[in-house]
């Protein structure tokens, strides 16, 4: 089997993490790759920079698909902390739930979590689009700079705390908004971008009018004494 260009199945029962990641990083790598028995391995399929279709059959540990570039990665299971952290492009789809800091600091691409995402989903996100099928935990979109976060369920405490220019759409309830995060009007362009995001994430039937938009009130963009309690 030519692991470089053929469709390949790796098994973490018989191969080491290093071997699998090395194969996924090989110059000129292409095709569909399947990874079996991940058993919570950390940094699995991290640092891929090729148009691969990668399927991981099972649960993964921290930083799965970290810093992904170009690849379409599907995790058939749950994901640990920081799935798709700092993703640049491509897509990552988690069929189960994701732990904390999903999509943290990611600059681009699409992250879809079909289940729930824990605390700090989209923390410091810098351009990625994140669609969560279920709910997100507290401090999600903390200091989120750019990109869009869509939550089909509910959001926990302090959503969008210290947010910059990320746009957040939530269908369910929001326990509380963080400092400088506010609800905003859904104008036609917002319905449109939300519909596109939902469609690309596989939820084309959702009614966009059931969602509320949140974003920055831009009151904390300059340090002044009146904001002292907010920092």
């Amino acid at each position, binding site marked *: 089997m030519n692991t470089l260009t053929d469709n390949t199945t790796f098994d973490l029962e018989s191969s080491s*993490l*290093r071997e699998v*990641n*090395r194969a996924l*990083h090989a110059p000129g790598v292409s095709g569909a790759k399947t990874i079996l028995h991940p058993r919570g391995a*950390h*940094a699995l399929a*991290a*640092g891929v*920079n090729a148009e691969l279709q990668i399927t991981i059959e099972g649960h993964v*540990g*921290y*930083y799965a698909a*970290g*810093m992904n*570039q170009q690849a379409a990665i599907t995790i058939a299971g749950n994901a640990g*902390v*920081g799935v798709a*952290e*700092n993703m*640049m492009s491509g897509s990552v789809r988690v069929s189960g739930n994701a732990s*904390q*800091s999903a999509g*943290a*600091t990611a*600059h681009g691409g699409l992250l879809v979590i079909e289940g729930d995402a824990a605390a*700090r989903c989209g*923390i*410091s996100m*810098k*351009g990625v689009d994140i669609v969560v099928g279920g709910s997100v935990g507290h401090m999600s979109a*903390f*200091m989120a*700079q*750019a990109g869009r976060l869509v939550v089909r369920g509910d959001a926990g405490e302090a959503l969008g705390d*210290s947010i*910059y*220019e990320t746009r957040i759409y939530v269908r369910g309830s929001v326990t509380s908004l963080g400092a400088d995060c506010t609800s905003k009007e859904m104008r036609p362009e917002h319905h449109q971008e939300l519909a596109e995001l939902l469609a690309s994430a596989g939820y084309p039937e959702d009614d966009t009018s059931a969602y509320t938009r949140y974003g920055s009130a831009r009151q*904390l*963009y*300059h*340090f*002044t*004494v009146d904001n002292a309690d907010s*920092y």
Partner: protein
Amino acid sequence: MTEQATAHGLRESATFDRTTMAEIRRAASTGVYDIRGGGSKRRLPHFDDLLFLGASMSRYPLEGYRERCGTDVLLGTRFAEQGVRPMHLDIPVTIAGMSFGALSGRAKDALGRGASAVGTSTTTGDGGMTDEERGQSKHLVYQYLPSRYGMNPDHLRMADAIEVVLGQGAKPGGGGMLLGQKITSRVAKMRTLPEGIDQRSASRHPDWTGPDDLTIKIQELREITDWQVPIYVKVGASRTYYDTKLAVHAGADVVVVDGMQGSTAATQEVFIEHVGIPTLAAIPQAAEALRELGMEREVQLIVSGGIRHGADVAKAMALGADAVSIGTAALVALGDNDPRYAKDYEALGSAAGYFDDYQDGTDPSGVTTQDPELQMRLDPEAGGRRLANFLGVITMEAQTIARACGKSHIQHLEPEDLVALTVESSAMARVPLAGTSWIPGAATGY
């Protein structure tokens, strides 16, 4: 004191001196805390409080200019067998991480030129890697910071080493800060921020907390870079003994300890002056942690915070550092605070030699600014030459001392070569008070 005050026998309060009162008035009138650049300005126990013994009857010196005294250093040897490429530097003085944004692109260019000319490394900073710096730097360390501004896996793979930043000596526990004046369109774009805002910056990494997570984070960085480059962990000096042990356990190749004299681009004054411990107190802690783990020289120790000349380099190394890092001294070599801009400094309400408002973007020397005109005052080629000269001089100074102590390599300097001038420095540096065999508190741990 003014002449009149002297004539009247007036006494200034040591507690409420004029600087203190000026700050009270400033806070009262503006309602904002004082943000500034630079490091701690008060007198702290420092390398000045140590002396070398030099050779004597029982030790013989090496002949200056004739007998070799090596200066090179290998950084990142711990996992060399697994493929990690150590960085081989010709001199043990590196350029510390300073952000593009805080510094101009031309300053970064100059730092790269100067460092490369003498075979040492430069370091990126908050805000990401610039072409200027990668282009000019033979050895470039890429910082991985809480903000992750401009964090790009392509840059990670272009780096010669990665430095995971947990903190800085000027502000252990604090995040970055860049005020609106310096968020120009290029800086804003690199950081994905709106132009002209006052940047709020995280003090904790967004996707890990604690040493166990750091272990996994380092594993991820190694996987992404295919185990090719060394990984440093930088901490501000505070609980240095424990931080060093935890960094080693987490898998660091190199531990960087930055003492409280270490400079910053911008932080609250109260932070700079009141959080962290002096460089002198931190080095022996780090060295002891490495020794106890059997990792001395295997995990290298880089020390920064107040390194000014070759004697400081030699003292830091004698106490256990494998290399040192400089920030302020490099900026001064480029022209920061130069008296030839005296008038401009005065116009800003400061003076050459006192200027620390790096956050304002008005630096007359053009080093810490994004202002297009001011930047032009720094010629990267000339600046690079000045920095190379300076690095060459301080290396020769350190060699001079090492030879006098009979060492054929700077790295062979040891605590035994040192004595302390004060009780405090003796206790902190763990070398005897000069003329005695007394080290206060020697029997106790941390």
